[in-house]
């Protein structure tokens, strides 16, 4: 600490009996300064951590309308702050899942020719249940619950028991 060296440089050589006293003062000053530095840096570090944005929890999101979907097609929709993928299978079933690839976070797409879900970034493949079947993805896509109410197709997180 510059405080200590500065004082030592200007003061005359102190008697050995004074050294513990000086050390005591230095420790006192040093810990005091350290504590203030910590109290100064702590708020800054906490400030730099971005606050959590409220995610759409159990709320259902309107993903699409029945009238705009056809068998063997898919549509991406906004699910909270992230994209979701709604697929109408060839047998006219609706499947919904997160569209964020579990590998490195690209947005996946439906391949009508393969009837599978494909990530263009690193050639990852998922089946229509979102299970990772080939390529680099380490985990399945998060599957969502689909509810059809009249013409509207709602998607929500699966409620865990």
């Amino acid at each position, binding site marked *: 600490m510059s405080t200590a060296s500065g004082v030592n440089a200007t003061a005359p050589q102190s008697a050995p009996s004074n050294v513990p006293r000086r050390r005591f003062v230095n420790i006192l000053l040093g810990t005091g300064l350290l504590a203030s530095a910590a109290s*100064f840096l702590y708020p*800054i570090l906490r*400030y730099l951590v*971005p606050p959590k944005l409220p995610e759409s929890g159990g709320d259902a999101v309107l993903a699409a309308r029945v009238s705009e979907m056809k068998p063997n097609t898919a549509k991406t929709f906004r699910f909270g702050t992230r994209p979701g993928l709604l697929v109408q299978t060839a047998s006219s079933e609706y499947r919904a899942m997160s569209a964020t690839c579990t590998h490195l976070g690209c947005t996946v797409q439906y391949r009508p020719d393969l009837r599978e879900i494909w990530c263009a970034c690193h050639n990852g493949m998922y089946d229509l249940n979102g299970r990772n079947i080939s390529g680099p993805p380490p985990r399945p896509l998060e599957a969502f619950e689909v509810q059809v109410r009249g013409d509207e197709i709602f998607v929500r997180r699966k409620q865990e028991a």
Partner: protein
Amino acid sequence: MASPVTSVRAWLDERFPLDDLKALAQKKKVPVHRYSYWYFLGGMTLFLFGVQVLTGALLLMYYRPGADEAFESVQFIMTQVQFGWLVRSVHSWSANLLVFMAFAHLFSVLFLRSYRKPRELTWVSGILLLFLMLGFGFSGYLLPWNTLSYFATKVGTEIPAQIPVIGRPVLLFLRGGEDITGSTLTRLYGFHVAILPAVATLLIGLHLALIQWFGMSVPPGVEKQWLARPAEKKEIRFFPNFVLRELMAWYVALGMLGALAALFPWSLGVKADPFASAPAGIKPEWYFLSMFQTLKLIPAKLLGMDGEMLGILAFGVIGAAALLLPFLDREKPFNTRRWISGLACVFLGYMAVMTVYGWVAK
């Protein structure tokens, strides 16, 4: 036995002139006399500027300029971001204290006549820095996009528009259009975070280099006394003695700043609505209050001239006189020296009275 610290030092010594800098710092002396305490004001202003740079950079992490986003993002900083209220409050408090310190520094230098030859350019750079700080205050005031700042900016940009010929182009330049809109916000934001800081950094560098070059001034009375009796001359070393004193003052200032920001947090106000009427009792920041009140009091017509025009002309003359003060201080052909302190006192008194008047006036 070479400890890691010594070997790092040795490595650095061969590649960086640390010892030369240290020798320079230790050789540098600072005069000590009964007015020495006034010397802390400049350093304090510099410290508060540092606080502004740091807290300003932090605010930039979350602030978004734009008429639809600015208010909300400041609200977000103050309510959602951890310690965001503290960072913003420190930025506002420090800004106000900085302007106050700059004025205090200016008047202390003026009354101690530290602007004498060869330090004229130090003074000029200081006055330019003060103008810059006022510019920072003015441009930063709009950024939260609340009612108060909206109308303060409206009035503030209207004032230079009164100047003949160049008035309108200046208004358009400041507002980025006819009215105060999102374009004004992004424009003043650009001034506040890029242009003014760049110019301020250069000017502060020049100001400090000049102070380093010529050393600290000694007031004329003390100088005379030291010349007559050299034994009374007292100096301390810049490093570590003066630096430690300075750091102690900064440490106390930091504590006070934290306390002020925590106990009197800056409020955000109501979001600006360009189609709402100006609320009653609208006022600018305190450092513009004396000018604001003067313009309010001047009659519409004075001496056959537009009253507003006359006021602005007077501010211009005062600003120019402040800038050129060292060159106005002379003994021949007229002895203006004894007038300067007196006029400065009158001016200071006027500013104080008008500020208080503006504060209490409805």
